[in-house]
């Protein structure tokens, strides 16, 4: 395929003395108003050792092709906006360095398994709906009045769920999950990690409500324990752990449902339907 290469200029703000090298960045471009389907386009980008892939894309947008679209905000792995496939792996562009792909070239594509809106921007609607569906807030076990003080928790109780609260919603785990690729309705690793963040919290009392969602085929049971989601997570959230410990819980609920019937039917009556 004929892949046009756009020219380069001197790195305008290269620090004095910093050695500037050049790298070829192949970006999968798609603009629905002009392209029938996504196609790669290669850019020659000068870079210094401290430049991230995000900075490489910013260089392209500022100096080579202003029509390139991509999401970014914080530049320090906190906002979760710049997730994309870099060298076919799901990565945050701000956390990945051009120097690691030199010499040679790198490919940049939108996050796998998500519909492309434009260039590197993917549609996040489905993910947002899943997050909304898991009751992503504390529903106190024993509601307290203000004068009764705060909800207390020991360090051990905190340790049981703390990493699951570190998720930045970057969706890299979804791009890593082949089951989400085959079934977009699968709740997926990220939303399940957030679900476990609340279900594992000693102060929360809405476990039964959220388990209704876990029990379904699109809940924990669509996962086949590939484990790649945890490997690509930039915040060590370990979503594979969140999904798979919920399989155990779901199975226990199934086998113990006879013993737990009174409690179970009570929770059903209190309106726990998954949305």
């Amino acid at each position: 395929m004929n892949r046009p290469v756009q020219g380069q200029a001197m790195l305008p703000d290269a620090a004095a003395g910093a050695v500037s090298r050049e790298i070829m960045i192949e970006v999968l471009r798609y603009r629905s108003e002009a392209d029938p389907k996504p196609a790669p386009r290669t850019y020659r980008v000068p870079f210094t050792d401290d430049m991230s892939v995000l900075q490489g894309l910013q260089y392209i947008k500022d100096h080579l092709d202003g029509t390139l679209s991509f999401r970014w905000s914080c530049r320090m792995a906190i906002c979760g906006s710049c997730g994309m496939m870099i060298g076919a792996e799901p990565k945050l562009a701000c956390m990945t360095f051009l120097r690691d792909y030199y010499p040679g070239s790198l490919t940049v594509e939108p996050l796998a398994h998500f519909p492309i809106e434009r260039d590197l921007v993917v549609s996040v609607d489905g993910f947002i709906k899943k997050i909304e569906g898991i009751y992503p807030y504390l529903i106190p076990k024993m509601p307290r009045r203000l004068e009764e003080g705060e909800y207390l928790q020991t360090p051990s109780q905190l340790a049981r769920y703390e990493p699951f609260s570190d998720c930045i919603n970057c969706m890299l785990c979804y791009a890593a999950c082949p089951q989400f690729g085959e079934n977009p309705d699968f709740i997926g690793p990220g939303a399940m990690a957030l679900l476990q963040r609340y279900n594992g919290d000693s102060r929360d009392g809405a476990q039964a409500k959220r388990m209704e969602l876990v029990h379904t085929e699109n809940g924990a049971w669509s996962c086949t324990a590939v484990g790649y989601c945890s490997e690509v997570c930039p915040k060590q959230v370990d979503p594979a752990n969140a999904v798979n410990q919920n399989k155990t819980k779901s199975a226990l609920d199934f086998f113990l449902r006879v013993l737990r019937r009174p409690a179970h039917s009570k929770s059903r009556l209190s309106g726990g339907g998954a949305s």
Partner: protein
Amino acid sequence: MIGPRPYLRPAESLWWAYPPYLAYTLREVTGVAVAGYALVLLAGLICLASGESAYAAWLGFLKSPWSLALHLLFLIGMIAHVWSWFQIMPKTMPRLVIGGRVLPQKWITTAGLVVAMVAFIIALLVAAWIRV
């Protein structure tokens, strides 16, 4: 409008055949070896229940070169499965908090592998003892 928006890329159906999913594929495929072992043992049990000649035939099958080759294949598959399974085991259980600190996942994997190895050695010793 020229292209659809949003654009859905075709799903990759052979994802399991490429890295980084090969470790997972290996774990799933070698599960067949575990089932194979179980089936051979089950066949032995059925033969034992149906009489002496059937049991002798089963023992005869175990000594055949075909059976030895099959068992060598099962053993390789079983070792790969055990190795791979204990790598993923910490993901399948709740986080173990001991004295306010989370037990590292590596320890769980190592403990599982050590138990499997000890069980394997004990099984070998018992087999050697029965033979003598």
